[in-house]
């Protein structure tokens, strides 16, 4: 049977945003085709059995920012949606001690007090400040931003509404927001805390995925962004999805299909076909053409505008903005299949502290020094490691008694000064493994399999330009009104019927789904107007 070649809508890219977008379009009754280049959907959110019995979260590994509306509107629980909340956070220290958080507020208080009594109290104040900041900015993040370049009275009115919304926030909340959005994570954390370990642990969220150190301006924004998630009404809570983040994208794919979307794998799109400034379909790399009046790009802005289209069809300003849009990936992964849980000498025989994040970034100085390497074009020799052993709460991940360990690494800049990633790949693995050996003596003996994922691999495999995990840096000039470019922050493009819905659009990266959902609202709104 010949493959069907005409649809109402085509989504390019089966990452989680493409799946979310396609699911909503199908739900609205459009015949929808999702085209994925690889043999599996999920993009940066996949789970792969790289060693028999061991499920690796090759790239993305934890869930928090997913918008709750999506869970309900796409009925994800019917398809197996299951976030497993992390009961612990563990932060080893250089001196062999540690900071361990559990679920009990007062127990955590005593644990912090071991390191600083002052911090134990300040922790609650900091938490409240962050929650209020998140609550304050949420309505802006959870809606499509106005087009700041537009003269349309409606857009102007929405812009003014944001002004009054902010003016109505309690002054303290507004001030916290400004500090977070413009300042460094270190400045804010040093206001509250004195202990290195707590500063280091909290600052880590301010550098994830971004080429900033904790003392760089802009790390506050990244910190805020990572607190923006929610599970079961708790802001900033993180979970593992059952079966890893790939388990989550399988749930999404199943929901999308149940709603009528068709998913075609190993179907790389070569370019978008346009006629008289209108999208009419796509041509696959094998030369076959599929028609649709709505085409949605779920890949990053560089590809959306400069690769899938002929840039000559676009306004020069936009082309310039996209060329300037900063990717500069700085993150890597080193994942392991382990024969058993590693041993932490201060807690011999225990593994209950390995049920959530294991944060190897014991102080601001440690993180900043790791960043120093990256500033000068090299990877950190004592890297920041965000480690997880999901198998401790999800038996689907590894054979009984064994462990699968994901390690998110910073910094590993895409552009290396004196070498290239094909040369450095295993050396990066060695650096990370050596660091883990320091923290968990005997670690090397447990290793059954090692997977090193460099920024170059992220780019090659997932298609994220320069390996930037968020499809574009979280820098203030690349957010909100400006993501991915002024005037084009509302999911449309200069080509009629051609839309964007990847992480390079508002609000941004992470397994969040908001870009895919907002884009579908925009598309369906435009279609309704056209009728």
């Amino acid at each position, binding site marked *: 049977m010949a493959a069907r070649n005409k649809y109402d809508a085509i989504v390019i890219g089966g990452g989680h945003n493409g799946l979310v977008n396609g699911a909503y379009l199908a739900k609205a009754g459009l015949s929808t085709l999702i085209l994925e280049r690889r043999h599996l959907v999920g993009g940066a959110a996949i789970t792969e059995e790289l060693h028999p019995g061991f499920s690796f979260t090759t790239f993305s590994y934890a869930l928090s920012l997913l918008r*709750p509306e999506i*869970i*309900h509107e796409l009925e994800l*629980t019917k398809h197996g*949606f*299951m*976030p*497993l*909340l992390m*009961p612990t956070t563990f932060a080893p220290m250089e001196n062999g001690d540690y900071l361990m958080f*559990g*679920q*009990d507020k007062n*127990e955590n208080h005593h644990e912090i007090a071991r390191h600083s009594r002052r911090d134990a109290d300040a922790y609650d104040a900091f938490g409240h400040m962050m*929650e209020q900041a998140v*609550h304050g900015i949420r309505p802006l993040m959870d809606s499509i931003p106005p087009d700041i370049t537009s003269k349309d009275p409606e857009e102007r009115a929405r812009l003014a509404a944001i002004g009054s919304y902010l003016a109505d926030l309690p002054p303290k909340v507004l001030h916290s927001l400004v500090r977070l959005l413009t300042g460094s994570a270190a400045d804010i954390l040093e206001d509250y805390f004195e202990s290195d370990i707590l500063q280091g642990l909290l600052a880590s969220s301010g550098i994830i995925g971004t080429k900033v150190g904790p003392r760089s301006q802009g790390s506050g924004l990244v910190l805020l962004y990572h607190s923006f998630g929610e599970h*079961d*009404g*708790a*802001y900033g809570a993180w979970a593992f999805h*059952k079966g890893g983040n790939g388990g989550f994208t399988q749930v999404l794919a199943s929901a999308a299909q149940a709603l009528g979307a068709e998913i075609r794998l190993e179907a790389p799109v070569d370019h978008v076909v346009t006629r008289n400034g209108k999208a009419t379909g796509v041509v696959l790399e094998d030369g076959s053409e599929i028609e649709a009046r709505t085409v949605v790009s779920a890949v990053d802005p560089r590809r959306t505008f400069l690769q899938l289209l002929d840039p000559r069809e676009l306004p020069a300003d936009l082309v310039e903005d996209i060329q300037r849009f900063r990717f500069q990936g700085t993150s890597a992964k080193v994942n392991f299949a382990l024969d058993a849980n590693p041993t932490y000498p201060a807690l011999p025989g225990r593994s209950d502290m390995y*049920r959530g994040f294991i944060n190897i970034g014991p102080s601001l100085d440690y993180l900043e020094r790791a960043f120093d390497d990256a500033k000068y074009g090299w990877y950190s020799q004592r890297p920041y490691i965000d480690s997880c052993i999901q*198998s*401790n*709460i*999800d*038996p689907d991940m590894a054979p*009984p*008694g064994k462990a699968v360990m994901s390690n998110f690494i910073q910094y590993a800049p895409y552009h290396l000064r004196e070498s290239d990633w094909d040369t450095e790949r295993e050396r990066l693995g060695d650096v990370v493994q050596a660091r883990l050996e320091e923290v968990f003596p005997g670690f090397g003996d447990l290793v059954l399999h090692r997977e090193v994922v460099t920024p170059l691999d992220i780019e090659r495999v997932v298609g994220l330009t320069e390996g930037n995990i968020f499809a574009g840096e979280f820098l203030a000039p690349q957010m909100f009104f400006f993501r991915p470019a002024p005037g084009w922050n509302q999911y449309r493009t200069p080509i009629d019927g051609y839309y964007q819905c990847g992480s390079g659009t508002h609000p941004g990266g992470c397994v969040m789904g908001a870009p895919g959902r907002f884009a579908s609202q925009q598309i369906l709104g435009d279609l309704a107007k056209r009728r």
Partner: protein
Amino acid sequence: MIRETPFHPRTAVANQTGLWSHWSGYLAADRYQMSDKFEYFAIRNSAGVIDTSPLYKYRIHGADAERFLSGVLIRDIRKCRPGQAHYTAWCNHDGWVMEDGVIFRHTEDEFLLTAAEPNQAYLEDLRGPMRVIIEDVSDEYGALALQGPYAREVLSKLAPEMETIGYFHLTPAKIGRVPVTISRTGYTGDLGYEIWVERDDALEIWDRLFETAAPYGVIPAGQTALLITRIEAGLILIDVDFYSARYSWNDDQRATPLELNMGWMLRDLESDDRAFIGRRAIEREKAEGTSRWRTVGIMADWEDWDRAYNARGLVPPKDHTPEHGGMMIYDEKVRQIGWTPSFVYSPVLQHHIGIARIRPDHAKVGTKVGLEVTIDHRYEMVGSVVTRLPFYNPPRKTA
């Protein structure tokens, strides 16, 4: 003095919170770890082990045991073959439910009945001339429920006959040298088993079980986790969702099997000639349609829930701690049409759900109702919908 179950030496060590409740005069861990949600997810994602020893247990045996029970229990015990179990209930003569429980049929003439309340005198008084012995063996056995998707895999390593045992079946087995009875039953609505072991062997079973199960992430689960799962499973609880007719003060407190969603137990009433206690009243209720209530599920509309809290500047709470209260339910004209005695935020469904008692004319699945919640000491109505029970019913439960 409060008593300890046969597993207490182990549960006491495992319980890091120091929180216990009193269950039938025994200590039962509320939660073992600081995060009870983690125990809950063990049940839904790996498996959890619940010490259910405090249940009352009656060995009922003798040549007339079947005849005796068929006159007491509302479900036809003759259809429960040796090696099978029945979830059932017993009523008083007016057809009000006294209690519910599970009865296990070990052989033709030997049964074990579990109950939440003492029943020795009640059962003995019904014996008449029948050749049946009723023994309270509550203290003689410990019971561990192993519940969750990995329960079968784990248990088959200890007792290979578990591979094939069907839903609501039981079998004698050996774990190591210890004789046990294993039934495929539970109170979580998941794939699960209960292991019945003589008191003195209890610790050995605990140790053996965890030796095998721990590498799968199996952990002890406390009462809170159990109570979340039972609401998701739509399983009612005495003194919460209904009261024993024996100790009720008025008929408002009492309920009939039909009102408690137990109608399916009486499906074959026409073709069975048993004279069981309450039968006449139940038949009358059936024929005349005089049931006052239906027991159904109710699910709060998530958007409306969030709206109600957001309007007050609050983060909408999503609390998985079961609320055993009685939030009122209204129709569109704000007339009270029922209440929800058990309410919880279900993590696996991501919705607020409740087991509800609703007037029959509003109990159709899909009916829109209003649920009264209290926000900052003010009443708010949250849109909700009548749903089928159970809320959560994975195929593995019976597969």
